[in-house]
């Protein structure tokens, strides 16, 4: 891991145009990912995580509008690329999703899908070579019996196997940045542990940088070097995993940590964060978390706290932490 950013996101602001208004899904989001780093984007449903991921992989749906911001990947602004540059970048940023079954065309065998990708991206034409490459990647993701998998249809494989197949296909185009959007959410806990383990091994082996999207802070803490907490379309806190767990600052982050059921404690009541997210068509004037925060004051309602580096390498957007002690 070096401190060279592979990705810089600056002031990213994204709206979705819908029939009855404009959903302000992402507002003023800025962060960086260094080479070889695993950065986790954590937040509850609707906080804008997927939208950020889609923007970076330039796969936003048509009703999305990028209002503002820059996405700089290896020194080039992805939002201002010439058409002819786009395909070369595409190979370098890849995204995988939650539902592996929805990603693969059910009518084709894994081998056919895989061969197409390899042919196109690695400019190979020799069928034997293509097959060899595909099997090599299926082995790299620790799939047993790659030959059989190569000849299987997607529906013949379990969710955990499918997610591995997708990771194998994704890796075959040699990406530099992998955006993994809740890749384990549909899997049970044992498969989840396997896939996380695999991603970490592959990161080392292929020198990947990973943006890992999850609503589960436990997972983020285990695999992330750094964690960015989002709420209602904005970043509320950012720190290294250790720091964030040891010393969470934002009331929302604290709440998220308390929600995690701990196996060694017997509860009378689980902690939860009462209430729900606001309507994204009308983001609050002040702090995004104000409605659900037990420590909110008048100031929080009127004035939006800026994301400041309150402690060294630990940013928070909350009026409880005023001024920098850096």
């Amino acid at each position, binding site marked *: 891991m070096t401190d060279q950013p592979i990705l810089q996101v600056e002031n990213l602001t994204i709206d979705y145009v819908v029939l009855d208004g404009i959903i302000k899904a992402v507002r003023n989001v800025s962060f960086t990912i260094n080479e070889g780093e695993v950065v986790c984007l954590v937040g509850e*449903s609707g906080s804008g995580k997927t939208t950020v991921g889609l923007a970076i992989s330039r796969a936003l749906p048509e009703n999305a509008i990028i209002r503002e911001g820059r996405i700089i990947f290896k020194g080039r602004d992805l939002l201002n690329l010439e058409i002819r540059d786009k395909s070369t970048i595409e190979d370098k940023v890849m995204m995988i999703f939650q539902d592996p079954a929805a990603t693969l065309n059910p009518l084709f065998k894994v081998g056919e899908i895989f061969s197409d990708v390899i042919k196109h991206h690695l400019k190979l034409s020799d069928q034997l070579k293509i097959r060899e490459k595909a099997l090599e990647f299926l082995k790299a993701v620790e799939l047993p019996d790659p030959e059989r998998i190569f000849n299987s249809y997607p529906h013949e494989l*379990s969710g955990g196997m499918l997610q591995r197949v997708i990771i194998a296909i994704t890796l075959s185009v040699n990406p530099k940045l992998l955006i993994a959007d809740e890749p384990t959410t549909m899997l049970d*806990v044992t498969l989840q542990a396997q896939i996380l383990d695999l991603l970490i091994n592959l990161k080392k082996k292929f020198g990947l940088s990973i943006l890992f999207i999850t609503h589960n802070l436990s997972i983020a803490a285990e695999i992330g070097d750094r964690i960015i907490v989002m709420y209602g379309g904005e970043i509320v806190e950012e720190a290294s995993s250790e720091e964030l767990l040891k010393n969470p600052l934002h009331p929302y982050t604290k709440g998220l940590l308390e929600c995690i059921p701990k196996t060694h404690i017997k509860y009378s009541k689980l902690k939860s964060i009462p209430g729900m997210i606001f309507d994204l068509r009308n983001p609050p004037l002040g702090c995004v978390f104000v409605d659900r925060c037990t420590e909110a004051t008048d100031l929080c309602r009127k004035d939006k706290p800026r994301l400041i580096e309150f402690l060294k390498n630990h940013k928070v957007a909350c009026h409880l932490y005023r001024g920098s002690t850096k």
Partner: protein
Amino acid sequence: MNTALLRIEDLKKYFPIRVGLFGKVVGYIKAVDGVSFNVDAGEVVSLVGESGSGKTTIARCLLLLEKPTSGKILYDSEDITQLRGEKLRNYRRSVQAVFQNPFLSLDPRMNVFQIISEPVKNSMKLSREELLEYVSSLLELVGLDKSFLDKYPHELSGGQAQRVAIARAISLKPKLIILDEPTSALDVSVQAQILNLLADLKKELSLSYLLITHDLSIVKYISDRIIIIYLGKIMETGSSEEIFENPLHPYTRILFSSIPDPYRKFGERVILRGEPPSPVNPPPGCRFHTRCPYAIDICRKQEPPEIKSSLIHKVYCWLHTEKHSSETKT
């Protein structure tokens, strides 16, 4: 003494695998392969295991959606497959279910009032006003106000939709609710809200739950008893305390190790390699031996016996028999 509300005896459910024009049966998927347990009145029993272990199939047998291949399901000491007439209707009212994806189980064309009142209309004689009042009181119980009455499922968040599904499940005053992964589609913060709600309702309405999940981390707080199931068979069962404080089966221990823990770094946990074997030809001997890091010779050949560690804590594992315990001390 507790009375068994529900008693499952050696339940088996085999799905035939058919091929060809005439549907010749070439084999069986042994989804549930000899499972026995009780749920007592007022008790919360959790059924925990990986994907494909047969949890939902057990639930579907209880809900009369599948016919058991063999074995018995007794409710109030009566075989549910033999119930007819009023007794059958009574059973269907007494046993309700809540599933993983609330949006799949709520009719998108009905509003919340219609969704909750539908089962009530048919079995309680209530005037329109009484019905409205009853449905509102159910909503209040699950923590939603009256403004939700005329909302449609697409206007609800995941947590709110699950609350509506719970309101519908309690509307007929059931005795037992089967909760099949009730929180695994929800955010962690919402998951905690729903688990708290379920715990409160249980006390208030003296319900029993059969909670089905692959995630051990959510069961401790709410369960009285835990059943660990693998490939259609029980591996270990005991009180919540016993399973959490003294897990005996290697599979149970690995399930614990699979729970993401924010205070542990990755690599510090045991990861279960490989996929569960096919339920068509489950491995001989102990079904878990192909993935068990501690398997010894006998595990591959003979089914493990039941070892009692306490009155209700039982494990099915050769490593815990007297004769073989010496081999494991390494």
